[in-house]
């Protein structure tokens, strides 16, 4: 018994660093890989193609229809009779609409910058319209 206890007391404790470094580097690579891949997000607009304004006319309140129209050299957001230059203005105006559950429509003509179209969808979503419809719009449509 004495011999055994002496051996145990005298035993050296060795710490294998190589394996630990191995695992630490694997963890590092893992977190680096995961942190790079998640910068994209989604907007989820409803999509529809409107052929006439008949559906809109049947509602009690006028629905929110955002258009992106050319104004001189650039494009602006049109909401009702107002032309709005910035997304902030558009969002502020959209927030004043009472009938959020009727949804909003973003009419996008082919020539409109897509960045503005996406921003208009985002503005409607930010103003709590549900659903927000992306409507490709023919410029010749009345």
């Amino acid at each position, binding site marked *: 018994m004495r011999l055994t206890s002496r051996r145990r007391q005298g035993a050296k404790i060795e710490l*294998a660093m190589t394996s630990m470094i191995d695992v630490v580097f694997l963890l590092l690579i893992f977190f680096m890989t995961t942190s790079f891949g998640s910068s994209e997000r*989604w907007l989820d*607009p409803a*999509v*529809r193609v409107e052929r006439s304004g008949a559906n809109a006319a049947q509602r009690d309140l006028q629905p929110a229809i955002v258009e992106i129209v050319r104004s001189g050299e650039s494009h602006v957001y049109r909401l009702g009779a107002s032309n709005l230059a910035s997304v902030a203005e558009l969002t502020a105006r959209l927030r004043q609409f009472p009938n959020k559950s009727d949804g909003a429509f973003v009419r996008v003509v082919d020539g409109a*910058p*897509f960045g503005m179209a996406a921003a208009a969808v985002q503005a409607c979503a930010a103003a709590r319209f549900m659903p927000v419809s992306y409507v490709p719009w023919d410029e010749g449509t009345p």
Partner: protein
Amino acid sequence: MRLNRHKHASRIELNMTPMIDVVFLLLIFFMTVSQVSEARNEPVELPKLRGSRDAELSEIVVNVLRDQTLVLDGTRVTVVDFVRRIDKRIAESRGDASRVAVTIRADARGESRGVNEIVRALTRLGVTRVRIAVQRTE
């Protein structure tokens, strides 16, 4: 008999390090595979917006470049080709268009013509699950 006793006294050691090593390698493998599947994403400047939810892996990703070229799975396609692919996908889903989801990655600097053509085509096919990819704003 004494030898046998020695055998009973031997300690059983479980070396966890190689197992952890292998587990993490597997984890990294699957992470890399998911990254490779994002290779379908063309380098386009997405609209810088907050979005409504985080992007996930999507089955059909169509890229609309600034010059309105459509790129599907790394190949330049026309709207007709795109429609054919979606039609095939709907057929694979037993004709249920509601099971097909399409992610549109369009360049914010380009016109909306390409996106509009895609949306018109998808609406004709009955596909309503359409997502617009945006770049997260910090």
